[in-house]
């Protein structure tokens, strides 16, 4: 119940202020433009590179979004009040990770159509599989992201510390995301690349559990 309230709070804040999704979208668009212009490549090359590029964009915009989400909490010392809520700290972690995932998914829905158009891609017909990959991918990114943001939010240089901690930790997950996107994009059947999906799922499970258990120590005063 408290979990629902916390997620609702994050989303409501965002839908009123639009401080996270709009910058994520604008930044993502800018990166796509830079990619498209700097490669200026044939369609075949674009096809080969696009899964990797897509996940780089997602990683960049997610670190932007995470930073913003936790800076918001710092304003007026809001996080201290959140911590004062009569709720397990693990639930706060879950709410942050889930609301982060929802915001990232919305940003992706905005960012992927221009990505397809600018990179001149043709998409396989079974696109719902890609939605699944995006969902698991985002859950993984946001689980480790919420842990790392919790660690870096009150440090000096927090906006620099976040990507430095976040990118190496999330790298195995990103490898798995890129691999499965790549195989899906090439139209290979699921049996050939199920390993990567299982790896992603295990990453999500490990870091959701770890975050749930450990967030208490991050937020302790």
């Amino acid at each position, binding site marked *: 119940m408290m979990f629902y309230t916390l997620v609702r709070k994050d989303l409501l804040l965002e839908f009123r202020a639009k401080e996270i999704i709009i910058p994520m979208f604008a930044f993502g668009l800018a990166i796509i433009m830079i990619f498209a212009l700097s490669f200026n490549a044939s369609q075949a090359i674009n096809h080969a590179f696009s899964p990797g590029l897509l996940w780089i964009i997602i990683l960049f915009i997610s670190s932007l979004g995470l930073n913003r989400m936790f800076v918001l909490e710092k304003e007026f010392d809001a996080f201290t009040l959140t911590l004062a809520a009569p709720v397990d700290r693990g639930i706060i972690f879950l709410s942050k990770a889930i609301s982060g995932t929802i915001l990232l998914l919305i940003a992706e829905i905005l960012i992927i159509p221009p990505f397809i158009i600018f990179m001149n891609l043709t998409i396989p017909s079974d696109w719902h599989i890609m939605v699944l990959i995006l969902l698991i991918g985002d859950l993984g990114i946001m689980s480790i992201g919420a842990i790392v943001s919790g*660690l870096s939010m009150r440090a*000096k240089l927090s906006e620099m510390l976040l990507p430095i901690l976040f990118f190496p930790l999330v*790298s195995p997950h990103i*490898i798995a995301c890129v691999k499965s996107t790549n195989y899906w994009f090439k139209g290979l059947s699921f049996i050939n690349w199920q390993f990567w999906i299982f790896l992603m799922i295990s990453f999500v499970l490990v*870091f959701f559990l*770890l975050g749930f258990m*450990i967030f208490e*120590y991050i937020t302790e005063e």
Partner: protein
Amino acid sequence: MELFFSKRINVIVAVFVFTLMVFNIYNIVNNTPMVPDQFWAQKIFYFHVPIAWIGFLSYLIVMIAGILYLINKKTVWDHLGFAAAEIGTLFVVLVLITGPIWAKPIWGTWWTWEPRLTTTLILFLIYVGYFMLRAFGGHPERTSRYAAVLGIVAFFDVPIIFYSVRFWEEKYQSHPQVEITKQNPEIVLPFLISLVIITILFSFMLKYRLHVLKVTHNRKID
């Protein structure tokens, strides 16, 4: 607080460790057989592999110390975690240097995205972040807590990194560590000696570092 080397026992141990290291190099250069196809390049493996193992061991220590610190908040666990992280990172840097030195003559390239090498590189990057967190964390008690958490998180990441990189590239090349069980005793014995000596060196370094951290900590309190 007294200096580390003002204790006689520490001086003796330091001289002992130094002698052992010299002996180790001598032993490796003179008493190990030349491996066909690899010649001198293979000798680095007597250092590379033990250093890599000890590097990973010290990250295991960081994780265990982190868990213990979160449970009972004793400064000694924090110091142990920090010291092990520092020495572990030093060792990991040595692994990242010796690996390419071996790879250049054998694989013909300085760097390949080989699973172990890549895992080590990613771990190294995580620990760069760890030291930045230590330096810029703000409040000291909070920084210790955060560092403990990061040590735990980093260690849980290792197996996932390893498997993701392992299957990332289908072609899989032979690696010194894979071959160790197939080697003859002439190679295994000096390897084990080197492993033991480097472990002793590691424990001595850890003891020294713990001492320094303790002295610094007491100074801050005074």
